[in-house]
């Protein structure tokens, strides 16, 4: 995989995650007990042997640089400059759905120059697709088809929330004949673009050059209008995919993790999901703890009842607490005799003694980072 460079794009429509993205870019939204969203695409890259990776950031870069460092936790080497954090997010918002900003590429010409000598193919990925992808399989398909572009899709996707995404019409031979914006189309079942594509690096360079002149800055649009002259193929992925771009989809994706099958696919695969390691002690359960069907990260103290929930690193759950169907992020402190149902508690939230917090499955209650309730 030496001739591939990977780029994780800065999803422009990140604001649907409400207060979760007010202090951080969507890349670093905490997920699954110890991860950040970007860990999934980044691990997918690394697991396929890609060692030139650019991550397009935003002006809210602190949590991103803090999380990634030089990439050593993803097995990336600072010596060989495997990981670059790129400028990003200066572009204006493009419509409602996740799309790809060509301006972000143009702003990082220095990166493209650096990788030019050794790169023939570029793998683009969203930062918010939860999946454990077989990138090598996609690449083989891309080579075999002699394609200019291969877009990965999840077939027969049933949209279970407001998000509709980019839909693809795919021929039997795999060719893509139409790219649709499904927020307009309102289809029930469709082929959802999974947020990952291979593209020839020379083609992307041409597109960047054209875009500087034409001002057409959405890569999806450019591909759609050039489908006739380019070899654009769709690769049908198997397995689990969830794109996180709304509070509801975040909550759903979290709850799906409790499904042993999905857990197995994401975490027990030979392709590991990497994240920043931390020196937490093992999680301590006391005499009164009652935990069922939950994911618990290290460094936590569990003294109460936790059901169908995700508990992040260093959270403290006091005695007499009942937590159900909730996401409790890192460093939260839940004091005695509180009840928390269908909630998402961002980092460092403190819930004081005796409080009750309840959302619904359809509208989970989000508590902002650092709040004291």
């Amino acid at each position, binding site marked *: 995989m030496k001739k591939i460079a990977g780029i994780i794009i800065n999803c422009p429509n990140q604001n649907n995650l409400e207060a979760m993205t007010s202090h951080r870019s969507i890349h670093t939204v905490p997920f699954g007990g*110890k991860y950040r969203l970007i860990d999934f695409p980044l691990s997918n890259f690394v697991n396929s042997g890609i060692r030139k990776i650019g991550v397009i950031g935003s002006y809210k870069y602190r949590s991103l640089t803090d999380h990634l460092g030089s990439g050593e936790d993803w097995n990336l080497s600072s010596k060989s400059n495997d990981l670059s954090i790129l400028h990003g997010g200066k572009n204006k918002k493009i419509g409602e759905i996740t799309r790809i900003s060509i301006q972000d590429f143009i702003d990082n010409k220095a990166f493209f120059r650096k990788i030019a000598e050794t790169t023939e193919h570029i793998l683009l990925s969203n930062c918010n697709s939860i999946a454990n992808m077989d990138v090598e399989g996609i690449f083989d398909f891309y080579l075999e088809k002699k394609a200019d572009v291969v877009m990965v899709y999840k077939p027969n996707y049933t949209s279970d929330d407001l998000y509709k995404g980019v839909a693809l019409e795919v021929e039997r031979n795999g060719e893509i004949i139409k790219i649709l914006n499904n927020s307009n189309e309102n289809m029930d079942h469709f082929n959802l673009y999974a947020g990952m594509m291979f593209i020839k690096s020379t083609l992307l360079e041409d597109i960047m050059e054209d875009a500087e002149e034409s001002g057409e800055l959405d890569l999806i649009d450019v591909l759609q209008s050039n489908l006739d002259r380019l070899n654009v193929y769709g690769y049908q992925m198997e397995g689990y995919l969830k794109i996180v771009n709304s509070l509801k989809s975040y909550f759903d994706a979290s709850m799906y993790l409790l499904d042993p099958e999905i857990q197995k696919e994401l975490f027990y695969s030979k392709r590991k999901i990497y994240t920043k390691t931390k020196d937490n002690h*093992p999680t301590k359960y*006391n005499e009164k703890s009652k935990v069922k069907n939950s994911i618990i990260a290290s460094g936590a103290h569990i003294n109460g009842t*936790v059901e169908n929930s995700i508990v992040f690193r260093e959270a403290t759950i006091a005695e007499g607490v009942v937590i159900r169907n909730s996401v409790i992020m890192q460093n939260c402190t839940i004091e005695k005799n509180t009840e928390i149902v269908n909630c998402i508690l961002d980092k460092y939230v403190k819930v004081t003694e005796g409080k009750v917090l309840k959302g619904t499955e359809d509208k989970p209650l989000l508590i902002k980072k650092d709040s004291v309730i």
Partner: protein
Amino acid sequence: MTDTKCIAMLLAGGQGSRLKKLTKDNAKPGVMFGGKYRIIDFSLSNCFHSDIFTIGVLIQYKPLILGRYIGNGSSWALDKIDQGIYILPPYADKEGERWYRGTAHAVYQNIEFIDMYDPEYVLVLSGDHIYKMDYSEMLDYAEEKDADLTVSVMEVDWKDASRFGIMNVDEDNKIIEFEEKPDDPKNNMASMGIYIFRWKTLRDALLRDEKKEDSVHDFGKNIIPMMLEENRNVYAFPFEGYWRDVGTIESYYEANMDLLREREDFDLYSKKMRVYSNNINSQPHYVGLYASINNSLICDGCMIEGTVNNSILSYDVKIGKNAIVKDSIIFSNAEIEDGAVVEKTIIGENMRIKKNKRIGNMDSDEITVVG
């Protein structure tokens, strides 16, 4: 960087045969402890927190696992430019090939290493102790006393005193006599096996000891008595707090269980002098629908469907449905299959306890070891 005032030499050499199967393929400091740790984590983390960034690890028995575990030292933030952790094995030179023949001989063989840093003091540590200690306080003490040798000591129960090296001191804590495992101890201040030597003095002592034919080249048996005999400034540094030598299965098991007792004198959970380790990237653990976990420590990657009580589970342990684990320590990647019962047992890495099998016994005095 600033000059290196003090470097550490960590004695990780011995076979540790009293830990039985736990040291079958592994040096003693490399044995797992408290779920996610290995014994050596405690000394190495202490070094980092004490601003001691250069550590030589002297090892000749089964160094593979420990060497890979230590890696570049970055786990303990000890991957500095020109400083860090250096594995120091036996080696050959023009004069020939020599194994380490005693704790002092191991340091003697690495005089060249120490001279590269030319430190004022050398801290000698054992790799099999569980404790949190800020060595910089001991170093300040050594400087204040202008000591050639400072020995860290702690009070032990009078009834245990005859199992330790006992230091008899004057009112200024100057050591006037050292008795190795005395039948009739004069006091209960026991050596913890932690020494700070003035390097100049130690270097000289090592060179002379090496030539003595009747010496076994051991710090406790030869070097310290020699320095006392020569009327060097040898001081005792009184340490208060939790400290355990985990050289036997019993002491190893008890020190693990101490973690579940939440002792105030040994707070693994506080961020103060946090114990670092080589963190494995494993997913958060999953607790199943019918699981029950009480008074236990659980590491990342575990999948628990059964009952875990008063136990410590390392990384990636699987506990099957209706399995029961009590008062036990399970090393990483072990599996306790459905319906199996494990009591008062240490289960080694990668072991598998078959369905409905019973291992160990709560009521027994013996600790079962499977490895």
